[in-house]
């Protein structure tokens, strides 16, 4: 399956990303199309957006996005339109609902939890922390000072 996809990508190759004939005349609309394309995945490629991809299917999607924009769709409407046809897989920016909450909240949650632990640790070491009494043997101490000497 993977190999087939790769072959598809290769066969479609001599088309290079956005083509001049795809570009819309209205620069504002074109800028929106480019921004949207960067968030949509080329389905037959390996982790490329349709803005970068050379595949035929990516070209079709780029044209589709531009058609919807010319029709007067808003950005979210275009995204919904594409997702309705190609599924959630097409989004490079994953939705935040449902199980994806875990994905989006991992960073902030982990940060605050780790920060809390770090704060507790720092507080303990700064106040009553017990002075550990594992002393080096005299031999080791000698070696250590020798190494530390510079």
């Amino acid at each position, binding site marked *: 399956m993977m190999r087939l996809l790769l072959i598809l990508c290769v066969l479609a190759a001599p088309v290079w990303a956005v083509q001049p004939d795809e570009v819309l005349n209205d620069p504002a609309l074109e800028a929106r199309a480019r921004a949207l394309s960067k968030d949509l995945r080329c389905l037959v490629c390996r982790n490329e957006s349709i803005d970068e991809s050379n595949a035929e299917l990516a070209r079709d999607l780029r044209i589709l996005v531009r058609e919807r924009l010319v029709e007067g769709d808003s950005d979210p409407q275009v995204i919904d339109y594409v997702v309705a046809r190609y599924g*959630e*897989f097409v*989004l*490079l920016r994953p939705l935040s609902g449902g199980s994806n909450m875990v994905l989006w909240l991992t*960073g902030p949650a982990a940060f605050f939890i780790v920060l809390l632990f770090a704060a507790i640790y720092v507080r303990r*070491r700064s106040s009553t922390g017990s002075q*550990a009494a594992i002393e080096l043997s005299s031999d080791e101490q000698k070696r250590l000072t020798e190494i530390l*000497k510079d």
Partner: protein
Amino acid sequence: MITELGHFALILAALTALVQAIIPLIGAHKQWPRWMAVAEPAAGIQFLLTAFSFAALTYAFVVSDFSLRLVSLNSHSLKPMLYKISGTWGNHEGSMLLWVLILTLFGAMLAWFGGNLPPSLKARALAVQAAIACAFFAFILFTSNPFLRLAVPPFDGEGLNPLLQDPGLAFHPPFLYLGYVGLSMAFSFAVAALLEGRVDAAWARWVRPWTLAAWIFLTIGIALGSWWAYYELGWGGFWFWDPVENASFMPWLLAAALLHSAIVVEKREVLKSWTILLAILAFGFSLIGTFIVRSGVITSVHAFANDPERGVFILVILAVFMGGALTLFAARASVMEAKGLFGVVSRESMLVMNNVLLAVACLVVFVGTIWPLVSELLFDRKLSVGPPFFNLAFTPFMVLLGLIMPIGAMTPWKRGKIYNALRQLLPAFVLALALMGLVWAMQSGRSLLGPVGVFLGVWMICGSAVDIMSKTGRGTMTSRIGRMWRLPRADWGKAVAHGGLGVTIFGIAGLMAWEQDDIRVARIGQTFTVGAYELTLNDVKDVQGPNYIATTADVVLSQNGEVISLLRPEKRVYPVSGMPTTEAAIDYRFLRDVYVVIGDAQAGGGYTVRTYIKPFTNWIWAGALLMALGGALSLSDRRYRVAAGARNTATSRVPAE
């Protein structure tokens, strides 16, 4: 014949590793010096055997011995010599052999230059290193043997993927592997210390140079890979947040955290168990990276040999080493009691903050990388996690890191007064704020990216300069500058590396905020304007390369009527694989790159031409090089050279060469 010798040497190396993994470990446990002493010659022999094996494979590629399955699949007689040699590691089997070669190299370096280590620690570290080697020798011999012959050799090979036919292949993987695999040293030292049951300042001082070296190589490797992608892939992206890139980035983040926490252990004997954990996890992420790259469970643009059976094998290696090390850690972590005390405002707590940010950033990258897999397995949701997610979820941690870095770098140890550091940094802060305001006022859009990038860049670079100046004490400017040059190299290393990070952050923000592009059909002789530049498509002609046919365009780049340079973008087709590649033409300048790509001839005449103006792109890699240079300066500091063992004690032996 040479091939068979190489194969045989590889098997012998595996057996040597097996011996080295067992005998010294028992010796260290029972305190038998002779058994411990086995480790050193074994590490040397293991390396020499693997090196011979690797040389044999390289020879097969150089002479195009197509009776070797690997060579016939990945090489071609018409390929230029550079790519015949670098093609040795341009495939799964060969790159795995390079991987273990570097693993054994690190082991041998430890055996040869680790003269001042306590014999039992050294024996244990070498045994752990050999155990890792055993696992990977088995992986190569049983699932990815590069020395398999073909019964009927083909007349010619199938050629190397044209994207890989680039000088980048010669340098990027070796550096990356030196970094990846170098982290195995930190792992081996951590496990050895857990077995010994003690971690002290001396341990941190031994482990830090190895981590630093690995981190330097990883920095260079990632930067080279990013630059390669920039000029080769045809649209000038430098980072794609692709699983394979993340695989190299996660160990980098953790190695950076480890470098900093090892300083705390070395100077203050606190954060010991955390440092050990980091050392284990950093190498764990190297193994995860290997799994991601080679198993094919996560789709990536950097397609390598994808084979589920190999994936399972690596997963088992990962489970055994991480499971074993973490169990050992859980059992022994309580032994490592911290010694020093420090205040809430101190270098120690600042470095704790550095570790928090780097570790959480790494976690975000990890979760984002594996989420498509998790989501499909657990929730039956097939989805993608792409650059928009990472840009949003990862960047805040780097911004925070950049904000506190100059302050943390100047906060004194133990119980500091932050006021003093803040006072010295005030000019840098004001300058950064002023430039941010200026940029904010000048730019047309409302994007925060540019101004924030400018602020962070100026703040971090000037902060590093203030840091180094603050160490020169009082007196006239001339005497302070004179003293500045005599500061320890570690101080310089720190300032240069920190400044380098500032340069990179500024470059990334500048490129992302102010890039311009233009896509059009240009006829021959036509002049068009992009941003402040005029481009003229002078000519397009077909050129025959050594193993490809190229369509080359002559594009004149000028500004205000003055010619700046002549650019020759190419489009190549490699007949052996039938695959096209783009060779962008780039006019590199200090403040911006102009990046031109030639596309197809159009039916109505003319050619597709893509032009990008990319501000501050070079700063991204210049910053990475500065970070590496800073690391190298630190590494060359006298205290490590002293620690690295000019001393010969009765317990250290002459290397077996």
